[in-house]
């Protein structure tokens, strides 16, 4: 039996209220102090690019300082809830803007004119009217170190900094030219959306399903990293397939112990449980609440696949709704054989006390 399903996934995909710190020394390299994690998606690198973009820095001149709290990192959001790209591009964009403002102040102070008479290009800050009148980033950073005060984090820090960031800033103070930013709370809730369509074949004799075709389209603002976006959509699809068809969490009511221990009993999908190819695509419209237009997509991509696959199973079974997931082989066979009445479905994904 062939079944078709369409599903939509949603998750709030961004937060605010975190802090950002960028530093620069006389060598002119940009150091992004970054507490964002890496669940395999390299988010710490993706969000650092917002700072590089503001300062028009070549990526190989940027160092990401990460991995240990004693490297003096600002508070960042945990890498969860599809929020990382939205939340932390805001903070690093803000920190880099602060550094840019300070660069123009220093240049105006030393070379004359007002800060707004200056722009940056090729790692130099220079007059708009005469770009030969300028300083390299390294020279600005060295000058900032001489001047101290707000240029090195020794004065005029944002008042709302989190306690954690305050500690990091105190320890960095005086060691380099600093850009620092506290991100105020934004209005609203940035949504991450996906839509998935799939076609399955359900074998009524074995209760097994095979996914013939699957496509997921994401709406996650500006796409910063197309390969990463594709990975998020495909990875989310594997997750959604598990949620709808395979992954069980059982508790034994007799002994009160988890019965799904280890990968085998948890039934995480394998390569051969997934389609050979999962098509992906995206809308790529910038989000107005984010300076680089980006939003998250991690969770929505599993939700739409899970919904589409569940709907396709229902479609293949003439509209029968199980009202539980995952829909496993035994549930499908019991339904087809008409034994659903006398056979009790295993209480899944909850503790049946």
């Amino acid at each position, binding site marked *: 039996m062939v079944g078709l399903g369409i599903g939509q996934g949603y998750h709030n995909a961004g937060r605010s209220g975190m802090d950002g710190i960028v530093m620069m020394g006389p060598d002119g390299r940009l150091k992004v102090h970054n507490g964002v994690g890496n669940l395999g998606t390299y988010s710490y690198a993706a969000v650092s690019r917002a700072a590089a973009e503001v300062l028009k820095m070549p990526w190989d001149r940027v160092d990401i300082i990460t991995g240990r709290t004693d490297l003096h990192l600002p508070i960042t959001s945990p890498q969860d809830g599809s929020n990382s790209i939205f939340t932390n591009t805001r903070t690093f964009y803000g920190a880099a803007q602060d550094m840019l403002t300070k660069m123009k102040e220093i240049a105006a102070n030393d070379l004359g004119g007002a800060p707004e008479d200056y722009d940056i290009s090729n790692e130099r800050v220079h007059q708009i009217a005469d770009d030969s009148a300028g300083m390299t980033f390294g020279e600005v950073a060295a000058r900032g170190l001489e001047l101290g005060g707000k240029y090195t984090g020794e004065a005029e820090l944002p008042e709302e900094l989190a306690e954690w960031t305050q500690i990091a800033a105190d320890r960095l103070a005086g060691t380099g030219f600093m850009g620092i930013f506290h991100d105020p709370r934004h209005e609203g809730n940035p949504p991450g959306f996906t839509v998935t369509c799939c076609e399955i074949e359900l074998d009524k004799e074995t209760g097994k399903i095979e996914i013939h075709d699957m496509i997921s389209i994401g709406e996650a603002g500006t796409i910063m990293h197309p390969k990463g976006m594709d990975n998020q959509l495909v990875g989310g699809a594997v997750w959604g397939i598990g949620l709808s068809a395979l992954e069980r969490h059982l508790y034994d009511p007799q002994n009160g112990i988890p019965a799904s*221990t280890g990968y085998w009993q948890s039934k995480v999908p394998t390569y051969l449980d997934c389609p050979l190819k999962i098509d992906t695509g995206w809308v790529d419209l910038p989000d107005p609440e984010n300076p680089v237009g980006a939003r998250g997509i991690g969770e929505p991509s599993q939700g739409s696949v899970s919904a589409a696959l569940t709907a396709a199973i229902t479609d293949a079974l003439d509209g029968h709704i199980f009202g539980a997931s995952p829909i496993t082989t*035994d549930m499908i066979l019991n339904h087809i054989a008409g034994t659903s009445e006398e056979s009790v479905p295993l209480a899944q994904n909850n503790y049946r006390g």
Partner: protein
Amino acid sequence: MVATSHDVMPDIELYQPADEATALDLASRLGNEGWLLGGGQDTYGWLKDRNKNPSAMIELTQIDAWKGITETVDGIEIGAVTTLTDIARDPLIQSRFGLLAEAAGIVASPQIRNVGTLGGNLIQDTRCWYYRRGLDCYRAGGNICYADSPEGLNREHALFGASRCVAVTPSDTAPALVALDATMVISSTSGQREIPAQDFFVGPDRDILNMTVLNEGEILTAVRIPNTWANAEFYFEKVADRNVWDFALVNVAAAFRTSGENIEDARIVCGAVECVPRRLQDVEAAIRGRSRSDSTANAVADMATAGARPLNYNNFKVPLMQNLVKRAIRG
């Protein structure tokens, strides 16, 4: 005792004999304390969880005499520590006993088949999760079956042959070897004995602690397959939750000799429905003289599961087993 994961290997004496005599001598001397190690795929989980605690391991994979596939006067002989990958890819087995090649080729995952051995796949312990968890059930020497109780989670358990314990055979190759009328070669310091595959596996009514007839000090060293069913019409199918790295909910291994349209003789064996591979002799008898068709298949479907006693959560195995037997007969 509840299972606990540990990060290091327990303290175990490791023996790596390179010849048969040394291995058999070790097995005899160490008895139940000498854990027989093939590919280790049914070993390390037990040891990691500390639910089996042997003081010594005898690694069998360095003994060349127990490895490889050879043609004999009336069939083939497969060494017990031959890997499942080697069996699945062997041209002789593929051409003559495709049923076994198919069964061996669908066990677990490619990685496990690369190290897992035929002997290990045959004598692996049951996958009943209560037993694996280290609970003190009948099979572990206690006096209760947690699976066969009003609240037991027994979706994967037995339809037939329950006797205090309701665990099932997890093997994919065992039903194929029963269907092929294979013989198990068992060696010990006192010599060799041969047991028909069908009698090699034992249910809880006979021995609730062991799934095979192997005694202390004995080693399964080879499997012999006679030419009886060589180049017959075969059917193998395994239905599991996942398509890789999973155990059968039900599997079927079947062999047919036909003359013209009609079945002259057949073997149909199902796994994962009983503690032993379940041969369906009534069905085999009923389809003799009939064609491999829908009508024959439908006529014997109920007979395939006659006597089944489903537990709370495994009713689905009844239609699944019937459907697999029907598919085997239809071809």
